[in-house]
């Protein structure tokens, strides 16, 4: 489902929603661009199986976190653009708190190795 030898599957799965929320917090975007952006920012370490992004996007839309609209891209083709809603911003805030907690614990534990 997810590319091995990069990040473990569970971690990719757990980080998908917060990543999407964080990317959309920077502005409206569409599926293909989201995938490319994550790939670029993680130096190819996080590679979603392309198709799997869309079910997550749709589910997040049903949750009321994001909204979508069809729009004509500069190429003349239609694309489905997603943007963050108010509940999505709240969810992002909560996700940031949770990931911050985890990363804080790691920072403390790993600090021990060089003090």
């Amino acid at each position, binding site marked *: *489902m997810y590319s091995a030898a990069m990040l473990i599957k*569970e971690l990719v*799965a*757990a980080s998908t*929603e917060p990543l999407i929320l964080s990317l959309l917090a920077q502005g409206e975007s*569409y*599926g*293909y661009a989201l995938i490319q952006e994550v790939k670029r920012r993680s130096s190819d370490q996080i590679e979603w*199986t*392309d*198709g*799997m992004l*869309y*079910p*997550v996007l*749709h*589910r*997040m839309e*049903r*949750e*009321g976190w994001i909204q979508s609209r*069809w729009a004509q891209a500069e*190429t003349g*083709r*239609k*694309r*489905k653009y997603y943007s963050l809603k108010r509940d999505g911003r709240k*969810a992002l805030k*909560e*996700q940031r*708190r*949770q990931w911050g*907690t*985890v990363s*804080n*614990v790691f920072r*403390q*534990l790993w*600090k*021990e190795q060089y*003090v």
Partner: protein
Amino acid sequence: MFNLNQALAAWRRQMADAGITSAQVLDELESHLRDAVEEQVRAGADTETAFDSAIQRLGPPAALRAAFAIPAVAARGRRFWPIFYYACAAVAILADLATLIVLELSAAERAIGGCAVAALAWYLLRRPFLPWWHGGLARARLLAAMKALGILLPLWILWSLLTALRWAHLDIGFVPTLILWSVFAAYGLTVLACGISDRQGSGGSGSWLPPLYPVPVSIPPRRPCPPGWAIAVPPADSFTPVARQALDLAREEALRLGHDFIGTEHVLLGVLRSAGDALGQALERHQVRGDTLRREIERLVAPWPARPTSFTPPLTPRARKALQFARAEAAALKDPLIRPEHVLLGLLREGSGVAALALRNLGVQLKALRAEFPAI
């Protein structure tokens, strides 16, 4: 010759056969495929290879269909339950108020009843915003208390039933009944709220993954890094054996509290544990008992699960500063070695660490304490 449009049409039929029939979804996926193909063609691939690899990367249709079928955490439920909670709370409060108004009561009864209703209303309406509600030790304690109270619940129901059937008549007066009912309402609604928040996960983040093992919410404060860390610690031979033991115990305390640094609070606990009678009595003259001080410190810092003992955490800048002050205190008292009481004075003099805060909270003052230890 490969025709992208035909290939896409064939692909759409395949997807439909696999069970993905929504035109919206297929449109979106097609748009994705076109983007992917375009980019690869720009990079120099031929259209057919690009299309095949794009299909590959999309994943097998069956897996896609399964992924689309995962339901969202009921979005309506997230709105419904809080509303339901507040509706119940309103009913409970209004019912209490109505009985209070309708019944013939003396002024005193009215006043006490009013207080009970006000307390109930405060609790029910304020609870979702109380910080401790959202996790941590207090919530765990609350849940434990509610479990214990749950044993009383059948008794309460039985009693109500018997009273209603007029088989038993226990007249405890209006006000106690009202208070009991208020407690009952608060209890019931807290149970309801716990159920709701467990269903939704903390904060309603609504991940489709099972919740992780609860992470402790409070994190010991992060300490600043150098230059404070460069403050020298007085050499070991400048301490008396008891004071050295106190520092060893400080390390032990840090590990016991699961902290990865030795702060002023740990040094203070170490001093307390190693302290002789003289120091203990001096502190007791200032109305400070070891266990109260320990409790105060543990209130101020967040204890964590204990750590293995093989590792020596670093002294924080404040603890280093306090030990330097301890040396100065010893010098001022013309003592060649640093004694535990000097460390105590150093901690107080440092002033901004947790140890100083805890001591000040308990009413200890530097000048008064200093007078306890006259120069030799």
